[in-house]
């Protein structure tokens, strides 16, 4: 009897092969590993978690440090981050509960905000709105009066693939949230839901949009409202350079083996006061009378990632954001 699953997945993933180039890179990565680097790396990993670190690279032992917008290294703070090892089963139950929370909350409607408490640690699942094309994203941001910008036009040959906009909850809507209830599908997991009022549905905290060209090359545009404190992970083989891009206060390009990333920061709009986690968990992690501290969002950090565009093309793309 045939196996349609194997046939379908083998064919769909047929372009993904561990070729000689990739094998060579793996071997080089192992060669570059030095035992003495470990304590520094662990300290930096913690610092990575303390800052809003932008950029996805995960080769832990090749991590060189965190840099600021000028490309200068930010000194690490302290070290407590545990490191996973293959024989370590700690965390597996939390992982199972988190998976369960993801599954349970993955299909919730966009007007609902959910929080999941896994073994005494809260995670928020802020609402997201899936968009079907680039123009829809532009329209939603425009209609919501969002400070988030998008480029006027995309590089030639790139078409929209998938994307979504994420929402925040302004402190002015905190009292207007509707309590949806709390459930505990498994011991150790608590889910808590709120419904946003309709007027809060245009408050976007960020977006993530994917584009692809006919060769399968990727372009990813990401924006995130933040309160500052950005740092960028620097990994072996990366090179970075500060940029000046019209319309942005600061910018940086990182050249990575997997592609290029341009980061650009926009400030200057009226700071936004958003509900932080303790607005939803007061009485759980903090006393009932603990003063609520809003999260002040005073800047937007944009990330442009591309596998095939040149640095000049990416800078030009960023320059026409509006």
């Amino acid at each position, binding site marked *: 009897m*045939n196996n*349609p*699953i*194997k*046939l*379908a*997945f*083998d*064919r*769909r*993933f*047929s*372009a*993904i*092969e*561990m070729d000689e180039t*990739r*094998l060579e*890179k*793996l*071997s080089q*990565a*192992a060669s570059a*590993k030095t035992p003495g680097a470990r304590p520094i790396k662990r300290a930096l990993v913690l610092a990575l*978690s303390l800052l*809003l*670190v*932008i*950029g*996805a690279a*995960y*080769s*832990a*032992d090749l991590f060189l440090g965190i840099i600021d917008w000028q490309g200068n290294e930010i000194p690490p703070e302290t070290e407590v981050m545990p490191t*996973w*090892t*293959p*024989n370590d*089963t700690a965390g*597996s139950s939390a*992982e199972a509960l*988190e*998976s369960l929370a*993801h*599954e349970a909350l993955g299909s919730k409607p966009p007007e609902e905000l959910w929080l999941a408490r896994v073994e005494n640690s809260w*995670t928020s699942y802020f609402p*997201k709105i*899936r968009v079907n094309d680039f123009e829809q994203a532009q329209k939603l941001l425009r209609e919501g009066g969002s400070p988030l910008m998008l480029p006027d036009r995309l590089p030639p040959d790139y078409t929209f693939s*998938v994307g*979504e906009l*994420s929402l925040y909850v302004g402190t002015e809507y905190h009292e207007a949230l509707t309590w949806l209830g709390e459930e505990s599908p498994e011991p150790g997991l608590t889910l808590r839901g709120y419904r946003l009022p309709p007027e809060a549905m245009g408050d976007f905290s960020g977006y*993530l949009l*994917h584009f*692809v060209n006919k060769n*399968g090359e*990727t372009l990813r545009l990401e924006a*995130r409202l933040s309160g500052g404190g950005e740092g960028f992970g620097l990994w072996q083989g990366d090179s970075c350079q500060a940029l000046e891009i019209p319309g942005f206060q600061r910018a940086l390009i990182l050249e990575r083996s*997997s*592609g290029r990333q341009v980061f650009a920061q926009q400030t200057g709009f009226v700071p936004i006061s958003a509900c932080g986690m303790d607005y939803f968990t007061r009485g759980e992690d903090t006393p009932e009378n603990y003063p609520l501290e809003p999260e002040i969002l005073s800047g937007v950090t944009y990330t442009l990632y591309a*596998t095939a565009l040149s640095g000049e093309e990416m800078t030009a793309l960023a320059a026409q954001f509006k």
Partner: protein
Amino acid sequence: MTDKAAGETESAREAIEALFRAQGTRLLRLAALYLEDMALAEDAVQETYLKVYKNFSAFRGESDLATWAMRVCINTCKDMRRSAWFRGRKQAVSLDSLPEPAVPVTQEDQEVLRAVLALPGKYREVLLLHYWQGIDARNIAYALGISEAAVYTRLSRARARLKPILEGGFEDEQPHQAGI
């Protein structure tokens, strides 16, 4: 480093390189499935390689080396999915960002892909490890850190959900009897 230790390091490296030469495509494809992004998948496999290399001497033979590497790779991908960067991403699985297939994908393939990707994660994961990667229940249990009974249950439920969509049945309808 003594000559003996240097020799052990060299033989470990050779063993790991052989492992990744044989199993690298499988790991890379799995990582691409979990992370839906080739650059991230390459990072995950590289981190897997380093973890396997670093912990090679502690490998206790609870499974074969390939299954151990797969477990490391799956956990690495899941760690990455839990990162702050990933938390903002959608939960539905999409292969749109992955390279276009090197061989034609049929209409039937598309239907299978859609149906499997629409399964809840825990069922999809077990189903693909078995039917796509050909891994038996004992090793799936080890790779995912769950019981064999849970593997059977999830496989059974996944098959039940797919049955109306996939005609012709599966290669082994009775996992216990077939000894997967």
